[in-house]
């Protein structure tokens, strides 16, 4: 019985909670039992808070029984990437250096989820300081992919996607600087949305690179992603990058009718040097979207070929500033890969950084032109099959590929441009999930969610066998 509850979606559960047909305590216990049973292997949690979660569940139950139902997240157990400030709780950011960091206030997204009545069962594993795409964390152990525990879950929000896929939480929040929500979502078969830059507050979220960082949900369904986004989106005066965008109710307005929508396909970048099985799964998905009534247009985005350069220069330069003191004074306290990138960033010049910003501008102009022909652009999320834990080199159709560099190749353009993008599961390659990436115009979250929702009707979430 308890497993049945833990495997459900928020969209299935909230009506039961509202009608008092389900107890938040029972629901929380079901998740905590699964965490105890399975997370010893998966290692998606850095810290657990079972007692606090049960206390919060009892409070939620009392509130709902008293007629004070707050909304769709009231009484829902969640666990977030361990990068968001929680007042008076330890937040590690997946690091040794910050392992005893205790913030004195909540991150804005945490505050909003608490206000919505969510319950927190713990904090989830991540790549150290969110600075990498594998979640092979040297300080807290590697997080493992629920589909194959020898494989990485992707990263940096690997604990979030692994926990959601394994039903060790109903939903999570991740951060995304080069693809860190979408990469693990693709690898673990979950839904992950990186919203438009400025739509979701980053206040109280430890930065990796301030001009590229985004916060967004990871869930088992598009409906749940919309529910989470409804709870966290909106202007925040405490975040200087926050934008006053029109308020949209994503969940209430979800619509699977995509007849007449124009799907842009960019082939030179998004389908170049992509694993054949992944490419085929995505092309099959595009055909399915056509069968649902969408039209396909070929688009050109010429400056995408410089995206990897612009991404690495920008994120490493900004991260190098954030960690400037520690990388000089205590380099041995960083993991090997993070230490290398932070040291390398000291070699970049101002000209490198400015060239990267020029490229971003040119890419934005390219995308604007492409969106004159298309409503959304559809592409693979990852170019490579899910690597083994610790694997540094792989191959793409026989061509050698560096995992750290290539894992973010197809996701980073949405960070460089600030455009919204969602990854949804669309098939399998060698038994591992494949992600379909849907990129939209600025603040067109509803549009990309609708396309994802339409696709989900014919390709729903599949639970991994644990």
């Amino acid at each position: 019985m308890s497993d049945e509850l833990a495997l459900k979606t928020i969209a299935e559960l909230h009506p039961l909670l509202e009608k008092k047909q389900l107890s938040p305590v029972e629901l929380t216990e079901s998740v905590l039992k699964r965490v105890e049973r399975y997370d010893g292997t998966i290692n998606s949690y850095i810290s657990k808070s079972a007692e606090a979660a049960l206390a919060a569940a009892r409070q939620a139950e009392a509130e709902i029984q008293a007629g004070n139902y707050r909304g769709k997240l009231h009484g829902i157990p969640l666990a977030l990437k361990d990068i968001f400030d929680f007042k008076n709780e330890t937040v590690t950011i997946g690091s040794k250096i910050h392992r005893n960091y205790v913030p004195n206030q909540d991150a804005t997204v945490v505050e909003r989820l608490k206000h919505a009545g969510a319950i927190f069962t713990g904090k989830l594993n991540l790549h150290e300081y969110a600075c990498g795409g594998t979640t092979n964390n040297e300080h807290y152990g590697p997080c493992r992919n629920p589909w194959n525990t020898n494989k990485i879950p992707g990263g940096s929000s690997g604990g979030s996607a692994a926990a959601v896929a394994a039903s060790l939480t109903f939903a999570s929040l991740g951060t995304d600087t080069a693809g860190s929500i979408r990469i693990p979502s693709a690898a673990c078969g979950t839904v992950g949305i990186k919203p438009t830059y400025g739509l979701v507050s980053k206040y109280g979220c430890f930065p990796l690179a301030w001009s590229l960082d985004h916060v967004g949900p990871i869930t088992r369904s598009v409906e749940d992603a919309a529910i989470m986004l409804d709870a966290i989106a909106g202007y925040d005066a405490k975040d200087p990058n926050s934008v006053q965008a029109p308020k949209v109710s994503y969940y209430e307005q979800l619509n699977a009718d995509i007849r007449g929508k124009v799907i842009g396909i960019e082939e030179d970048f998004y389908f170049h040097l992509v694993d054949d099985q992944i490419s085929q799964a995505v092309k099959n998905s595009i055909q399915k979207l056509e069968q649902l009534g969408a039209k396909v247009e070929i688009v050109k985005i010429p400056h995408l070929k410089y995206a990897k350069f612009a991404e690495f220069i920008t994120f490493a330069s900004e991260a190098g500033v954030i960690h400037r003191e520690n990388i000089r004074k205590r380099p041995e306290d960083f993991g090997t890969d993070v230490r290398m990138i932070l040291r390398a960033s000291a070699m970049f010049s101002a000209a490198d950084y400015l060239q990267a910003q020029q490229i971003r501008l040119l890419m934005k102009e390219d995308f604007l032109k492409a969106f004159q022909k298309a409503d959304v652009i559809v592409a693979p999320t990852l170019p490579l099959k899910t690597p083994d834990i610790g694997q540094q080199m792989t191959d793409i159709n026989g061509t050698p590929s560096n995992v750290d560099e290539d894992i973010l190749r197809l996701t980073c353009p949405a960070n460089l441009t600030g455009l919204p993008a969602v990854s949804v599961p669309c098939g399998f390659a060698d038994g591992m999930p494949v992600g379909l990436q849907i990129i939209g115009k600025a603040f067109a979250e509803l549009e990309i969610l609708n396309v994802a929702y339409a696709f989900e009707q014919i390709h729903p979430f599949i639970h991994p066998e644990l």
Partner: protein
Amino acid sequence: MIQQILAQKGIIVSPEEAEEILGFLKNLENLKADFDARSDSTKDILLTQVAERGFEHVR
């Protein structure tokens, strides 16, 4: 060389680490080689755009 430059910036690396960083930097250079080869006039226009329009993302 990289070891010396980084040391001047207060970052001490081993020869092996310097080699790894050098490989990474060379990869990055290759990724934008033909961007560097654009005409000077194009660069001037781009720099003007950045100066006029800033680095903001979506507006």
